[in-house]
């Protein structure tokens, strides 16, 4: 099984018409990422236990899928920050591409944009957002 480096991950945003597998067309990369946390898909659990449950053991079935939230950090750049602030709250396409060209894409919106200011370090922009609808797995870019 090939191992995939964490180093080299990329975060992109584009209009909702942007094709997830397109190499660059329709997409803008956010540069100098320091932390990349893709959205975690989480499935609701619905308890189906009843008085006749076998072996007195609770039973469940899967419910709705919560598509999760994303959390990205990058070196602060005032131009990039201004651009991201301009699309905050607007529905856009986003994707995270790993070093092997695979990744995940989704439609969603930026919920919060903030700066982390370290007196002895570099200023970091933190981008947090919500996924709306199912994620799209990307196996390779075209």
């Amino acid at each position, binding site marked *: 099984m090939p191992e995939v480096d964490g180093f080299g991950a990329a975060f992109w945003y584009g209009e909702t018409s942007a094709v997830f597998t397109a190499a660059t067309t329709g997409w803008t990369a956010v*540069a100098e990422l*320091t932390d*990349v946390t893709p959205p975690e898909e989480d499935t609701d659990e619905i308890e189906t236990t009843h008085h006749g449950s076998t072996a007195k053991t609770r039973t469940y079935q899967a419910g709705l899928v919560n598509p999760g939230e994303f959390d990205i950090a990058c070196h602060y750049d005032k131009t990039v920050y201004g651009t991201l602030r301009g699309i905050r709250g607007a529905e856009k396409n986003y994707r995270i591409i790993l070093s092997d060209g695979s990744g995940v894409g989704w439609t969603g919106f930026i919920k919060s944009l903030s700066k982390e200011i370290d007196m*002895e*370090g*570099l200023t*970091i922009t933190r981008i947090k957002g919500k996924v709306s609808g199912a994620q799209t797995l990307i196996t390779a870019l075209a």
Partner: protein
Amino acid sequence: MSFESGLFTVLTGTVGISAIVASRVRPMEGSQGETRPFLAYSLQDDEDVSPTHAGPSTTRRVSIDIVSVADTYEACRALGEAVRDRMKHYAGTPSGSSVAIRWTRLETQSDIEQAVPPGTEKPLYVRSQTYRAMYRAA
């Protein structure tokens, strides 16, 4: 890009320091028989301040020791204070340097024990200061 060369320029370019040591600012330690007083510096730590997924950041953070060496305690203290006055907060691009120093600060300073150079009975005095600094290519 060399932080040490920028540091050398800052120290020797400061009147309060050069009046005491001229250009006797040495890497690591002074040579045997070095004219005193003098300064010696050594890099303790040089780290990439914030590596990214695209590669190293252009900014680096260092920890550097600067040692003041003199024949009397008072001369050693005065030299240490002159260095501290310059380095407690420095930001700028030293003249002719390829390094832009973003900030410096004194982390700690202490008097090292009174030392006796080999072959002599005359003591010398040593004060050690550790500074933190951040820099990038100018």
